[in-house]
Structure formats: C-alpha cells, structure tokens
C-alpha cells in the first residue's frame, strides 16, 4: 500500500458486503460527484468504494477527511449490526475502503457503547437495560436479574431517553435493525399527556398529524413557515430570530439569533468559498431527557422544515441530523420524512422555486454522552473519536469539517417555525422578560403522569409538577436539569422555571429535566450512580475529567460503604470539593465542568447524610 499499512485480516463475505453497501450507499446519498463516479466505475473485485491508486496518493489529510472519513461511523454500525461485533477482518476491510488508518478506526470503534471489538460468542439480540436514575428507582436491577435468569443477553446501559416508561430497554439486533419494544404508537403518544391541548405551541401537532405522512403535516399547517421564510428573505429570518430572543434549549441557553447571525456573516475567504452547515444536535443523552425523541418521533417533518429554514437563513446548503443511536423509531421516522420531503420538492435543488438548495442527512451516534457536546459531535460525525475540541474557535467559524456551522437542538429549531410565522416580537411577548417562548419539560421519577410537558416560561416548579398529576408520595427532592444539573428541595416549588429564575436559585434548567424523588427513595445509590455515569462517560481526553470523575466516584463509594470512615467524612468532603473545583476550572468541556454539580447539591441539601454512614 502506498501510504497506509493494513493488516492481513480478511473480511468474511457478509462483512465485505455490508461495508461495500454502507460506503457505496452513503456516497450515493451524499451526492459526492467525482467520488461517486469513481465508486461506480470501480472494479468488481474491490466493491463499489475502491479508490484508484493515484487518488490515494493525491488526496491526503484534510481532503480525505472531508470526502471519505465521515463514512466511518455508518460503516462501523453496518459491521456491528451484521456480525454482532467489529472483527479485525471487518475493520481492516472498512479501513481499506475508507482509507482510514486501522489504529484510528479501532480507536473510534472502542469509543462507543454500542460497538464491541471482541467476539461475543453468540448471535443473540442484546437487551440494553437503563440503570440511570428514573429507571434505577423503578427497579432496573431487578429487571436485569429477571432477564438474565430468562437466559437473555443483557447490557447495563446509561440513560436510554425513555424515562417516562421505566425500566427502559433498547434491543440491539444481530443481522437486523435495532429496536425498542415500547415503541408502539400508543406508547409514543403517551409520552405527551397534554396532546390535543389547544394552548400548545411546540407540541401542537402531536396526536393530530400523522408523523409518517407529509400530506398530513401540510394539512396541519406544515411548510407554511418555509414559504414565509422565503418571503422574509434570509436576513429577515435571522432578524426575527434575533428579535425573538430565542435561547438554545440544549442546556447552554445561548441566543440562537446571535449564533445564526455569526454564521450568516461568514464570507468566502481565500480561494475556497466556505461550505456552511446546519447541524441538528439530536444526540439527546442527558439522563432524564426525552423531549427531542418525542418531538422527532411524533413530528419529524417540523424538524426538517425548521432545519431547512436554518439553512436558508445562514446560507448553509447542507444539514445534518446527528441522532443518538438508541433512538431507532425517531431515526426511522426522520428518514421517512426526509424521503417524502425530497419527493415533494421541500428538499433538494431550488426548493419552491426560491433558488435555494438544501438537503439533510441523518447520522446515528453509537452511544456516547459526550457526543452531545457540540464539538465532540463534529468529531464523531467526521469519523473521529468523539472528543471535544478546545474553544475558541467556535462552531460559527470553525465547526463541522472546520466550516462555519449553526448547531442547534431540535427543540430550539421547533421554536423557529412560530417565530418565522408570527414574527420575533410576537414570540418575545410570550414568557417572561428574561425567558421568551415556551419550554418543554421532561417529567419523570415519582410523578403521577410522567411525560413531556409544555408550558410558557414563567410557570413554577410546583405548577409543572401539578401538570403531571403531582408527586407520588411525599416529595423529597427534584433533580433539575439532569445529571449535569442539580437537586433542589421541596422548598423550591415556587421557583419559576425560567433561565433567570433557576439561575437565581443556583440551579439550571439544563435540558428541561424534572425528575422527582419521594421520601421512600434511598438517595445514596442514586447519587453514587450519577457519579458513576460521569466516570463512564468521560471521553478521557483531559486529566481533570478522566481521573477526577473516577476519584469522585471512589470517594462517594468509600463514604457510602465503609462505616469505619465516619471520622474521615470531613476529609472526604474536602476531597470532593477539591476534585469538583479542578474539574470545573480545568476540564476542556461541559462534561467535566458539571460532573460534580448534582453530587454536591445532593450533599449540600442533606439528601445523603454522611453522619450515620
């Protein structure tokens, strides 16, 4: 080989076939002209993706990254699905086809929860059972024992994003698609107890429009916003989004309009015009969060329309939806919706004779919380390990493939539809002074009716809990904002669930998690599990997080299990403080910055008593 070294391991026929298909199909879908021609012209022996020798020599480094490397993740998915693992022969063949160094591809394969690189020794389905808070307190340990006793292959999994229906399970198929047993239509609709309520904004079509039919979506008012966006013009749309004061719903609450403005302002420089991108961060993995799953399963066309508007407004011609791998139904519905939108002329060249061209590609994650961090997501999508990048530079200038990128959460984009239709000022009048519009909250744990709820900003924690039918038993605490959020006590029920209200209370809305715990729940295991979650999900790149999360977990376990440590509790608390501060101050990304927040709040709140341990 001219420049890369490959081992001698050979693929079996199935592996060869699935790699060829994954690579060839993806190239076809991406519409990558020159490569596609070469692919089709490739000799039969090498499959559709064979590169010619001269190309390999010429296309090095970043060019290779742009044109081929990003197919690594879909190709690994194809191997895992076909064989139940990624074998040396399969990986080697994928690397040859994609021109990726095998050591790097192995590094990528070993990064994700859903991939394994050792032979499982069986070809059965594997049931992933969630062990995070909402499921943990609903008996995931028992469920795992039960399934194992029945001879099933079980994998203890971090939050699967189905917190409204614990104990959550996700089944990884062998030779067939992954699926979620609870994903029957009724179970999906049940995730939105308010469905049909005339006051809804973001959830208004759920239960009313058929998520599998574009005709139904259009009848329900769909694609009016895109038409309106064309009328307003790109700058007009950005202006309205700025005027709306919309803030990102993924957890960081950054003003969406400012982000779009920055991407729109990026001009061609040098000899290469910038290819701008819109990326939808649908890697919803914050424990307790399932709103984006619900939106995508029940109203996929709305996300596609809003993403198209984002592309039009910022000058991007390509959109990507990076969706978490554990969401098979949402993925299927999005892909179906994309096909229908393309067929109806809402995607592709010259949409609605506007001369605006745009298309969207869906990419599945493979199980890694960190890939919800925007720059880690870019790396993951590009076929690298999902390790966050140092910021600055920010995505608006150096995002996906190092190009200007607007990256938004699905819920954020849903808001854009009404903003474009009604204008930013109308939208800004909804909610409070500091938090405009409405917000989705994911209620789970000890509430009567778990699910996704929508309220205009301003509602208090108590009011939202009441919407969900109130608490089962006596409330002891609420986990607000997810594992990266914090626990608050029953004395905070009058806290307004706004950005400013939560900030004033020293908490954060995060991704909209409201997980209730009653007095019957033993909190120590819950808090320890949160620490374990961060330990498991740290990407390992920076020292403060890679080792700090381990030491935090160890210290908690020690406090919880060794009664003889009574006297050393103050030392342990000091240690936790020291670890916390270093992770907050010196970690690269938000995972490390927030890895101690929930743990500390639980201790401060007295949810876990150290005295009698």
């Amino acid at each position: 080989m001219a420049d890369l070294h490959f081992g001698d391991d050979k693929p079996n026929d199935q592996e060869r076939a699935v790699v060829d298909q994954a690579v060839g199909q993806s190239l076809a879908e991406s519409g990558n002209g020159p490569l596609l021609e070469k692919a089709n012209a490739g000799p039969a022996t090498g499959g559709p993706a064979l590169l010619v020798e001269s190309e390999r020599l010429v296309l090095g480094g970043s060019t290779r990254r742009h044109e081929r490397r990003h197919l690594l993740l879909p190709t690994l998915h194809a191997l895992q699905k076909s064989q139940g693992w990624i074998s040396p022969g399969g990986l080697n063949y994928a690397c040859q086809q994609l021109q990726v160094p095998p050591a790097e591809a192995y590094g990528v394969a070993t990064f994700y929860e859903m991939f394994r690189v050792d032979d499982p020794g069986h070809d059965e389905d594997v049931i992933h059972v969630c062990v995070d808070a909402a499921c943990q307190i609903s008996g995931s340990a028992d469920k795992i024992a039960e399934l194992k006793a029945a001879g099933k292959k079980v994998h203890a999994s971090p939050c699967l994003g189905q917190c409204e229906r614990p104990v959550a399970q996700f089944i990884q198929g062998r030779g067939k698609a992954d699926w979620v047993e609870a994903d029957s239509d009724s179970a999906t609709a049940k995730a939105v107890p308010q469905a049909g309520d005339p006051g809804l904004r973001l959830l208004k079509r759920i239960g009313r429009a058929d998520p599998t039919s574009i005709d139904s979506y259009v009848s329900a008012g769909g694609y009016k916003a895109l038409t309106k966006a064309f009328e307003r013009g790109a700058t007009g749309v950005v202006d309205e989004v700025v005027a709306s004061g919309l803030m990102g719903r993924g957890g960081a609450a950054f003003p969406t309009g400012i982000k779009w403005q920055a991407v729109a302002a990026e001009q061609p420089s040098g000899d290469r015009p910038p290819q701008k991108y819109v990326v939808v961060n649908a890697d919803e993995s914050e424990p307790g969060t399932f709103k984006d799953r619900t939106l995508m399963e029940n109203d996929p066309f709305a996300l596609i329309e809003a993403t198209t508007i984002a592309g039009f407004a910022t000058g991007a011609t390509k959109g990507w939806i990076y969706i978490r791998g554990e969401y098979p139904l949402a993925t299927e519905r999005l892909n179906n919706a994309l096909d229908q939108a393309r067929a109806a002329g809402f995607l592709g060249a010259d949409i609605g004779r506007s001369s605006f061209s745009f298309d969207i590609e869906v990419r599945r994650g493979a199980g890694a919380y960190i890939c919800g961090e925007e720059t880690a997501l870019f790396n993951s999508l590009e076929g690298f390990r999902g390790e966050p990048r140092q910021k600055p530079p920010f995505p608006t200038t150096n995002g996906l493939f190092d190009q200007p990128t607007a990256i938004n959460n699905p819920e954020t984009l849903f808001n854009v539809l009404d903003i474009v239709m009604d204008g930013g000022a109308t939208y800004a009048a909804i909610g409070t002074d500091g938090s405009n519009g409405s917000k989705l909250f994911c209620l789970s744990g000890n509430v009567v009716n778990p699910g996704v709820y929508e309220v205009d900003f301003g509602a208090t924690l108590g009011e939202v809990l009441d919407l969900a039918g109130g608490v089962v038993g006596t409330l002891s605490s609420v986990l607000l904002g997810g594992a990266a959020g914090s626990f608050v006590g029953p004395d905070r029920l009058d806290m307004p669930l706004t950005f400013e209200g939560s900030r004033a209370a020293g908490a954060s809305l995060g991704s909209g998690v409201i997980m209730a715990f009653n007095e019957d729940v033993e909190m120590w295991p819950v808090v320890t599990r949160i620490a374990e979650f961060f330990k498991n999900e740290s990407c390992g790149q920076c020292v403060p997080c890679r080792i700090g999360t381990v030491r935090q977990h160890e210290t908690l376990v020690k406090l919880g299990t060794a009664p003889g440590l009574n006297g050393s509790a103050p030392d342990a608390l000091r240690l936790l403080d020291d670890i916390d501060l270093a992770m907050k101050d010196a970690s690269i990304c938000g995972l490390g910055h927030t890895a101690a927040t929930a743990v500390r709040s639980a201790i401060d709140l007295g949810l876990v008593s150290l005295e009698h341990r």
Partner: protein
Amino acid sequence: MTAPSGPNSATDTSNTLTAVETKVTLKIDGQEVEVASGASVLDACTAAGIETPTLCYAENLTPVNACRVCVVEQSGSRTLVPSCSRQAEDGMEIQTDSERVRHSRKMVLEFLGSGVDLSQADPLARWSEQYEADPSRYGTEAEKIEEPVRVQDELYIRDYDKCVLCYKCVEACGDDAQHTFAIAVAGRGFGARISTEFDTELPDSACVYCGNCVAVCPTNALQFKTEFDLRKADNWRADEQTVTQTVCSYCGVGCNLELHVQDETIVKVTSPNDHSVTSGHLCIKGRFGWQYVHGE
C-alpha cells in the same frame, strides 16, 4: 463574533511571513509583555520569565491541550484556559499563580500521581513538590492503570502504567511527524489507552520503528530497550552519561544525532528539537541503527 486567525492554517502562516510582523501586548501577573501576534499565552509567559509546567505540550508538536497542567487564569473567562493553545491577544490579563491556578495544577499532578507510575517522569516529580500534590489522599485502593509491559522487539518497549495519555506519541506517529498512524487512543475515559488496532503487536502493526514516539514521551512509558534492560539490571546511570552530537552517516539528509553514552556504549539516540532538519524526529536508522559502532 470575530474569527480568531487560525494558527494551523497554511494561508495565515504565509500572510504572517510576508506582512510586517505585528505585536500584541498583554499582562502576565501584572507585568506587561509584548509578543509576536500568533504567539501563545505560554510563549508570553516564557517571554516574561515565568516557568509554566507542561506535559502534553512540545515545541515540535501541535498543542492538544489535554493535560491541563499549564492552565492559567484569564480575566473574563469563566474557566481557566490552557496557556499552550490559547493565542495571546492584545489587552489580555493573565494570572499564572493565583489560588485557582495553583489548585488546578496541583490537582492535575495529584490525579496523575494517584493513577499513573510517575517514577521516571522527572519534571513531574519536581512540579508535584512545588504544587504540593499529595496523591496519597486517594488511598491505596484508588484505581490505577495496570498494564503489562509490552516488550515485543529489541528496539523499544511500552510500559503503559507510566502513560499519562498526553497524545504526544500519537501525534508524532501521525500528522505531526511520521504520518504512519500506527497508534491511536482507544477506549474511553479512565480506560483509554494508546493502542494499535486490536492491540496488535508492534512488528505486525504499521509501526516503522522511527522511535519518534519514544523521543516525545514525557514519562518514560516508551523507552529504548537498551534503557529498559539497564534499568532492570539497576545499571541505568543517567548522571554519568555523556551526550555527543554528530551527523547521521546513513544518508545525505544531514540529521543531527545526540548519542547518549554510558560505559562507552551508546544507550539511546535523540535529535535536538530545534534542529532545522529533524525538529527532533529521526528514522529507524538514525534512531536505532548504531549497533555497528560497537561491532566486533
């Protein structure tokens, strides 16, 4: 939002070369420092005469800012910033010895000391003392990296108990020097390790034995087999070694070699990082092909 000029972009570099060199002025610990535009905060600290501990940084590699031991406090920044990869800007105010900086540096050193064998990582021991890092706080049962020493050939060994995951070897093997890509980071979190694909033995991997990974390793996780054997025999005497500079005789490129000699025997070969030809990197012949010197 303004685009920070990309230090890695080829076009930017050429612009800098042709344009009149511009300067930026910033304050480090209250002291005004002027550095060339494009310089890092670390460069500015060095210019101000302030020593900054670094681990994953090397002058001949792209900064990966993973170790976080070089963090400094920048006014207006919520978190500390890695000095190695943050570009110096006009008007920046940097603290290098604040309580927060000292705390994070101490904790990074302490974390590493609690999980990794730093016994042969000389500067780390000194810094650990300076920042009062106390790895014993985590108890004897704290999880450690436990890997067998990989001795797979006669040229160099890999002892990942000593690995701090600074990424330097990966960079030297890959885009920053050798473009061989024999190793990468595999796994995640505390389980992340430097690895070939499926932990394939080095002779079967893409490794070309340039030894550039060994040269950049800051903790001796990678070492010459000669050094490994001498250490095992308790006969590694670094203080007594002499270093002789010469030019490699194998080809006409003109790489500078530094021959580390103990008991009149070459025990290790390096090349100066600031050498215009090598930037510290060599090939298998210059690095390991010196046995003929001692031939019968």
